[in-house]
C-alpha cells in the first residue's frame, strides 16, 4: 500500500529534494532533519559507519556518548525536557543491546524516544555474524513498535511513521534497525517507495454521559480528592488541573512522575502519594469519598495494598489516554479513556464551584499532625542538602533525580511551581539515570541550569558520561548524596527483612572530587551544611560541569513509608 509524500506531511518542495540519488544513510539523515531532529546522542561502530560517514554533512548535532545506555538516557532526558522526540544511535550487537535499559526507562515513563540501530548486512542476518543481535526481538517488550528496514526506499516513510508513533497517543520508545547494506544502498529519489502512514489511534472523545456522570460524582462528593500523574504534563493539563481542584475544593496529590504538575505552594497541594508519599496525602486518599485519578497508571507504588486503597471512596474516576490502564489495577467505577486536558476541561464546564470547608479542615489537620520530618542529629541530612540545592535553583532550572533514597528525598522536598522541571525514572526505577538524562535535558535547554541528584551507588553506574559533559559542553551540576551504601536497600533490610544488612555497604568509594577533576570538571566535597552552601555556590558559578560530593548521614532514611503489605493509611513516620 502506498501514499503520496503529501500524505506523509511533506510538501512539494521537499518531495523534489528527494529526487537526487542518495544512499540510505543520507536518506535517513534527511528524514531525521525533516522531523526537526536537532541532536542525536550516539556511539559509532561497525554497523552504523555509513551513517557516521554522512553525519558531518547533516545539520544535526551529534553528542558522542561513552556508553550506549547513556545515549538512550540522554535522548530520554532531552525528550522529557523539550517535549520533542529524543533520538539515540547505536551500532549492532552489543551497541544495540546496551540501549535496552534506557529504552525501557523511557518507554515505561511514556517518553517519546526513537532509537536507530545499525545491523549487520541483510545477507548475514541470522548467521550469527560478528556483532549480530536480534535487536527487534530483544526490544519487543520495551518499545511501542519497531522496524527493520530492508529497502532504503522505505526509510522516509519508516522514519515518518516511527516519530508519529513515538509522540502520539501514549508516547513511548520506537526502534529502527537498519542493516549496513541498506545504509549504503543507492536510491534514485524518483523511485522512492512510500508506505502509508498508519493513523494515530486516538481514543474517541469520551461520551458526554460518562463525563456528566463523573461531574455528578464530583458535585455530590463531600470529600473529593485528585491524584495526578505525568499524563497531565504530557497533555498540557496543568492549568485545567488547578482550576478543577479549586472548583471542587479538592486537594491534589501527585505520583512520582507527576511531581511538579501541580504547584507545590498551592494550598491544595498534598505532595507525593503512595509508598513513600506524605502522610497527609495518604490520609486524604484513605478518607476521600470521591477520587479522581488523572494521567496516571495507579501502580503498586501508588496504591500499596490494593484492597485498602481509597476504602471510603464511593466513586473512583480514572482518566487515562491508554484504555488498557483503565481497570488494570484499580477497578474504578467511572473509567474515561481520553486526553487529560480535554477531559478535565470538560469536567470543569460541568462542575459548579463548591467550597468544602469541613473537608479542607480535616486535610489541614492531617497536614499539621503528619508533617514531613527528618532527624536533627548533628549529621548532614539529605533534606538540608536538597533545600540548599533548590535555593540555588532558578525558577526554570531542571532537576533530574536518580533512583533510590535520593530520588524520594528529592521528590518529597521538591518546591517547584512550574511543571516539567523535575525528572526521574519513575516506572523502571533505573539507577544511573540521572547524569545522562541531565545531559540530555541540558542539550534541550542550554540556557537553563540542570542539576543531577544522585546517590553514590547510582552515580558510579554511568559516571563515564562526565567525559561527554565536558566534550559536548553540557555544564550540568551533579549533587551526590553520598551515604556510602545502597541506602534504600539498607532501609528495606532494616525495616522489612529482619534487620539483616547484606551487601549494602560500599567499602570502596572513589574520591569523587578527584574523579570530577580527572574528567576536567569542577569537584568539591562537603561535609557540613555550610560547606554544602559554599560548594553549591561555586558549582553554579562554575561555567562547566561541576560535582558536589555531599557526605550525608549514612543512617538517613525516607519517611513516611508504608510497610509492605499495608494500606496507605498505615504509613510509618520518622521516629
Amino acid at each position, binding site marked *: *500500500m502506498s501514499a503520496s509524500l503529501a500524505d506523509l506531511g511533506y510538501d512539494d518542495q521537499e518531495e523534489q529534494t528527494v529526487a537526487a540519488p542518495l544512499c540510505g544513510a543520507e536518506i535517513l539523515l534527511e528524514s531525521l532533519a525533516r522531523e526537526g531532529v536537532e541532536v542525536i546522542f550516539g556511539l559509532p561502530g561497525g554497523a552504523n559507519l555509513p551513517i557516521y560517514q554522512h553525519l558531518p554533512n547533516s545539520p544535526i548535532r551529534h553528542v558522542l556518548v561513552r556508553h550506549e545506555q547513556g545515549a538512550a538516557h540522554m535522548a530520554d532526558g532531552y525528550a522529557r525536557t523539550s517535549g520533542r522526540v529524543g533520538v539515540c544511535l547505536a551500532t549492532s550487537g552489543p551497541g544495540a543491546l546496551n540501549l535496552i535499559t534506557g529504552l525501557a526507562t523511557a518507554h515505561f515513563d511514556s517518553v517519546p524516544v526513537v532509537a536507530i540501530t545499525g545491523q549487520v548486512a541483510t545477507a548475514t542476518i541470522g548467521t550469527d555474524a560478528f556483532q549480530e543481535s536480534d535487536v*527487534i*526481538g530483544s526490544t*519487543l*517488550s520495551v518499545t*511501542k*513498535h519497531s522496524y*527493520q528496514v530492508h529497502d532504503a526506499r522505505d526509510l522516509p516513510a519508516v522514519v515518518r511513521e516511527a516519530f508519529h*508513533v513515538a509522540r502520539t497517543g501514549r508516547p513511548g520508545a520506537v526502534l529502527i534497525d537498519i542493516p549496513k547494506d541498506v545504509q549504503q544502498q543507492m536510491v534514485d529519489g524518483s523511485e522512492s517507495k512510500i508506505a502509508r502512514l*498508519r*493513523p494515530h*489511534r486516538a*481514543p*474517541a472523545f*469520551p*461520551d458526554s454521559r*460518562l463525563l456528566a*456522570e463523573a461531574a455528578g460524582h464530583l458535585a455530590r462528593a463531600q470529600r473529593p480528592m485528585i491524584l495526578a500523574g505525568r499524563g497531565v504534563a504530557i497533555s498540557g493539563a496543568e492549568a485545567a488541573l488547578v482550576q478543577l481542584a479549586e472548583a471542587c475544593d479538592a486537594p491534589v496529590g501527585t505520583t512520582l512522575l507527576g511531581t511538579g504538575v501541580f504547584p507545590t505552594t498551592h494550598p491544595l497541594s498534598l505532595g507525593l502519594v503512595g509508598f513513600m508519599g506524605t502522610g497527609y496525602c495518604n490520609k486524604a486518599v484513605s478518607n476521600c469519598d470521591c477520587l479522581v485519578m488523572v494521567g496516571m497508571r495507579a501502580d503498586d507504588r501508588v496504591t500499596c495494598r*490494593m*484492597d485498602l*486503597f481509597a476504602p471510603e471512596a464511593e*466513586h*473512583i474516576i480514572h482518566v487515562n489516554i*491508554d*484504555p*488498557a490502564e*483503565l*481497570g*488494570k*489495577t*484499580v*477497578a*474504578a*467505577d*467511572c*473509567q*474515561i*479513556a*481520553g486526553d487529560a486536558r480535554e477531559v478535565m476541561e470538560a469536567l470543569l464546564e460541568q462542575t459548579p464551584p463548591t467550597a468544602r470547608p469541613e473537608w479542607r479542615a480535616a486535610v489541614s489537620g492531617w497536614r499539621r499532625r503528619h508533617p514531613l520530618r527528618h532527624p536533627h542529629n548533628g549529621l548532614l541530612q539529605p533534606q538540608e542538602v536538597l533545600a540548599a540545592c533548590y535555593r540555588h535553583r532558578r525558577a526554570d532550572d531542571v532537576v533530574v533525580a536518580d533512583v533510590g533514597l535520593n530520588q524520594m528525598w528529592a521528590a518529597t522536598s521538591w518546591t517547584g511551581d512550574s511543571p516539567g522541571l523535575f525528572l526521574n525514572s519513575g516506572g523502571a526505577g533505573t539507577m544511573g539515570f540521572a547524569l545522562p538524562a541531565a545531559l540530555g535535558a541540558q542539550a534541550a535547554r542550554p540556557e537553563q541550569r540542570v542539576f543531577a541528584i544522585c546517590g553514590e551507588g547510582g552515580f558510579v553506574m554511568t559516571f563515564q558520561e562526565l567525559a561527554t559533559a565536558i566534550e559536548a559542553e553540557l555544564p550540568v551540576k551533579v549533587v551526590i548524596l553520598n551515604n556510602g551504601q545502597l541506602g534504600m536497600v539498607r532501609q528495606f533490610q532494616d525495616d522489612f527483612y529482619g534487620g539483616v544488612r547484606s551487601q549494602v555497604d560500599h567499602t570502596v568509594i572513589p574520591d569523587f572530587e578527584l574523579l570530577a577533576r580527572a574528567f576536567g570538571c569542577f569537584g568539591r566535597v562537603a561535609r557540613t551544611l555550610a560547606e554544602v552552601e559554599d560548594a553549591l555556590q561555586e558549582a553554579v558559578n562554575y561555567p562547566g560541569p561541576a560535582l558536589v560530593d555531599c557526605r550525608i548521614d549514612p543512617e538517613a532514611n525516607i519517611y513516611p513509608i508504608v510497610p509492605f503489605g499495608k494500606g496507605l493509611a498505615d504509613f510509618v513516620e520518622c521516629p
Partner: protein
Amino acid sequence: MTAASRDTAFRSDSSDSRDVTRALRDPFIRLVRVRVEDRSGVLQRVTNCLGRRGLRLLSCSVGQNADPGTLSLWLQVEHGSQPADQVAKQLAKLIDVVSVEDLTGSHPLEWVTALVEIPAEADDPATAELLESCNAEVVRRDERSLLAALSGTPEVVEAALERLRQLPLVDWILSRPIGLGSGDPLSADQSSNTPREWR
C-alpha cells in the same frame, strides 16, 4: 470485580490446554479474533504482548480473510489473575493490529480439523464403519496406512477423535479452531469508555 476478589480468583496454573473446547466453558479464557497487518514479525509481536502481561496463549490459528493485506488470528487466551478485558485492550495497543474482537460468550461458529493415520493392517470393514459413523473421510491410502480427515465444531470432532482412538492409530493431529461470528468489536481506533463493576 474488586481487587480482593481478583486475588482470590488467581489461578497460577491451568488444566490441560490440549482440550480445545475448554474455552467454551472456562471463565478464565477469552476467545479473541484479531485482525493484523500481514507484516514480518507480527505473530512475534502478538505472542510477546500476551506473554509480557502474563496472559497465556492457549491456542492460535492464523488465516487469510476477505481483507487483502491483513491476517485473522483466532486466539484462546487464559487471563489468569489479570482482568479479563486486558487481553483485548493490550492487543489493541499493537501498531500492527487493525481490530480486536472479544467473542467470549457470543457463541461464534468455531471449526476444527483433525487428521488420523491408521495402520494398513487395521484397514478393515469395522474401521470403515467406525470412520463413517464419525463422519471421517479417507483422504489417502497407501501400503503403510490410511489417512482420514474429519472436521466440525470442536465438541463434535473431539468426541469423534475420542472414539477413533479405539483404533491402533499411528498418529493423529487436531487443529486449533478458526471461527466466524459476531462479537463485541474493540477496534484499535476506539477507546474503551465502559463503566465496570465497582466493589
